[in-house]
């Protein structure tokens, strides 16, 4: 049977359509769903789309920044207000992929993909999920944790508090191929400093588990410390907490564990890769 394509003006209607059809998938940028169809995934019988304009808008709402789920990496890169996020958007695929891949879609990208989601995780992002009649908010961390359990949830937008000082946000993706390669691992770090000491650090890793994960051990170790010997060694000692890396075509779990502290140290010290 040919695939049915259902296009809705409102995200809510698209959400209802998704919920009512087990064979339905929501088409964002196409990098996940169209690939699956091309490769013969016959479990997909319906493509659900939305032309809802809000999904493709970036809304700096004062202290919070809200990014529509349909916003592409290219849009992020052309938005000066989001300069601190450009390093995380620039490493998603090549230019053509970035013109298609969406912020919402990245939340569903399986490891070792989903590096942008790791960046959002370090920014304490909240996911707003479109329902038939209303939208609900979920912390990104919970959203990712429950992602593996499946379920057809339609992401409407992602929002996060604007970093007080954009320079306190750091992102690095380690890949074998330059300039475009998928992750050995990626590291996102928000490192607010108060009085020479780290306060309220947020660290997240990509490709160190089935989904991007918070590095809570590192966050605790850095709290109230400076990035000198003591704070650093405590942070590195705790960096594997909560990670569960796997072997894949890019690197083994062993290698990921071995080099995570090396790259984390370089990120924290602002050293080149």
């Amino acid at each position, binding site marked *: *049977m*040919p695939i049915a394509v259902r296009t809705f003006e409102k995200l809510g209607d698209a959400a209802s359509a998704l919920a009512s059809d087990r064979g339905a998938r929501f088409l964002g940028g196409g990098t996940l769903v169209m690939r699956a*169809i091309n*490769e*013969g995934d*016959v479990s997909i019988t319906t493509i659900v789309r939305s032309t809802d304009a809000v999904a493709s808008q970036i809304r700096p709402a004062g202290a919070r920044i809200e990014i529509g789920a349909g916003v592409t990496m290219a849009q992020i890169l052309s938005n000066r207000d989001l300069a601190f996020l450009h390093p995380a958007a620039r490493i998603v695929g090549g230019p053509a992929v970035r013109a298609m891949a969406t912020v919402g879609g990245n939340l569903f990208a399986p490891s070792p993909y989903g590096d942008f989601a790791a960046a959002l995780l370090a920014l304490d992002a909240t996911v707003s999920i479109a329902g038939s009649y209303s939208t609900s908010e979920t912390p990104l961390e919970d959203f990712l944790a429950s992602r593996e359990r499946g379920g057809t949830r339609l992401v409407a937008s992602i929002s996060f508090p604007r970093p007080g000082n954009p320079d306190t946000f750091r992102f690095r993706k380690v890949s074998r191929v330059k300039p475009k390669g998928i992750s050995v691992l990626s590291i996102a770090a928000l490192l607010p400093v108060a009085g020479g000491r780290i306060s309220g650090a947020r660290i997240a890793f990509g490709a160190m588990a089935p989904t991007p994960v918070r590095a809570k051990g590192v966050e605790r170790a850095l709290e109230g410390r400076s990035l000198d010997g003591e704070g650093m060694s405590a942070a590195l000692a705790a960096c594997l907490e909560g990670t569960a890396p796997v072997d894949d075509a890019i690197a083994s779990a062993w290698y990921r564990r071995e080099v995570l502290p090396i790259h984390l140290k370089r990120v924290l010290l602002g050293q080149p890769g």
Partner: protein
Amino acid sequence: MLEFRKEFFADERDDNLKEIGKGTQRQDMLGHVTAMTKYFDDHKVQNLLHLKVLRSPHHHARIRHIDVSAAQGAPGVKRVIRGADVPVNINTLLSLLNFGKDDEPSLAVDKVRYKGEPVVAVVATTEREAFEALSKIRVDYDPLPAVFDVEEAIKPGAPVVNEVYPNNTFEYHDKYDHQKLRFGDVEKAFAQADHVLEQRYQMSPIEHAPTETNGTVAAPDTNGRYVVYTGAQGLFFALDTCAKILNVPSNRLHFIGGTVGGGFGGKVDSVTEPLAILGAMLTGRPVRYLHNREEEMQFGPPRGAERIFIKDGVMKDGRIIARYVRSYFDSGAYTRLSSYAVVKCVAHIPGPYTIPNVWADVYCVYTNRTPATAMRGFGITAVDFALETQMDKLAHLVGMNPMEFRILNAYRDGDMKAHRREAKNCALIECVQVAAEKAKWPIRDEFKRMHSRSGGGGDRAVIPHTPGVTPSATPPRPQRTSYERPGMPQPTPQSAPQPMPAAASAPQPPSLPAQPAPVQTQHGATRFSSVFGTRRR
């Protein structure tokens, strides 16, 4: 930056030709940049059907039962193809050259021997319908123990991968499980060597990864013929293979190709042509069988893995006096072309060096993985990695400059090679000298002065006594061939070869320079083996 070093071998060359030697634009370049170049899938074909194959999910399994009834009735399905529908469902590529036994079906019948082996093909109106039909086919498998390691595969009691070769090795000359190379007496020379180094090397399987995947479009034509658009690397090789498998006279097949989106060896195996043509025969409509990228990467044939053991005997002064190579080609579940790579590999040993004692035993081994095939450097690339890494270790062992070490042992015009043919037209020494110069890698003047056209032949042209081998009936002919054109000056050794030292009948360049002290001092002989560890003797 590319430069030409015309001063080398200028006397052997006519540089005043009108078209040869010019950087003329490619005949196909305008077509490439205007996207008008037509590859196999760019020809206009009406009413095209799409062929997809169901592949084995097991590395090794008996097929108990195949149920295609649901697929046959599925929407858009024009034909389901089983092994029994293939006129001659057993072949080996090199049967065209009478080399090897038929050992591979187009579609598996009794059992599957690697994960991804084609079992059933479906021809449908759209790709989607073909995929849906595949999902409706039920195959009842009985999984069997599989073997993946070449050395495990040749042990007694290992699972039999391919019943045509029950020992999991290709059969050479109807009596050996490997191809031999015997030149001189390596054991005697190892006993005389100052150092003996034995090492293990492993080449990985590699994908050709042309940007155009393997594929074929076959269409019924007039007069009961079929026109076949293909990306094959050998047009008649593919055509004759199909004529055999489909049991039709070759002149009923009209192959059109020759413009291919990269091959590198990956489009020699005629994997898509036979099924595409059969699909066209069975449906009376044009059929396309195109590998997707995952099929190309995991189930299309790779450059096979190779495991190589090298044992060398070297003198303190850097002369290699013996080399023994034992190597295993991982052919995967079927022969394809690996049996030939073994022969090519044997002829290549010991590399571009004159070594008086060289033995080799090279095996083509079957394992439960995707059948391997040719790739750029077939039979050579992996052994060159092993040989040249080994050469670096030997230079280190005797404390010699690796460049000078290569030049010292390099083959020269007139030398006898291990496959018992005279070395000619050599240029290794010159390449080493020029590369050293470009890289500003210092080598001593004596080595800068050496060249391939002198110092060879003489004692170096002798075929040494080879124990256990009765001299072959026909004395080795010099490498002359009837088609060789006269006119090119035949270089002759310009200086008489030096007498050989008593230590070993090893090759020696005209002026053997004084050797520096080894980096690591070796007292007496050391045997190092990556397999058995280090021990003194």
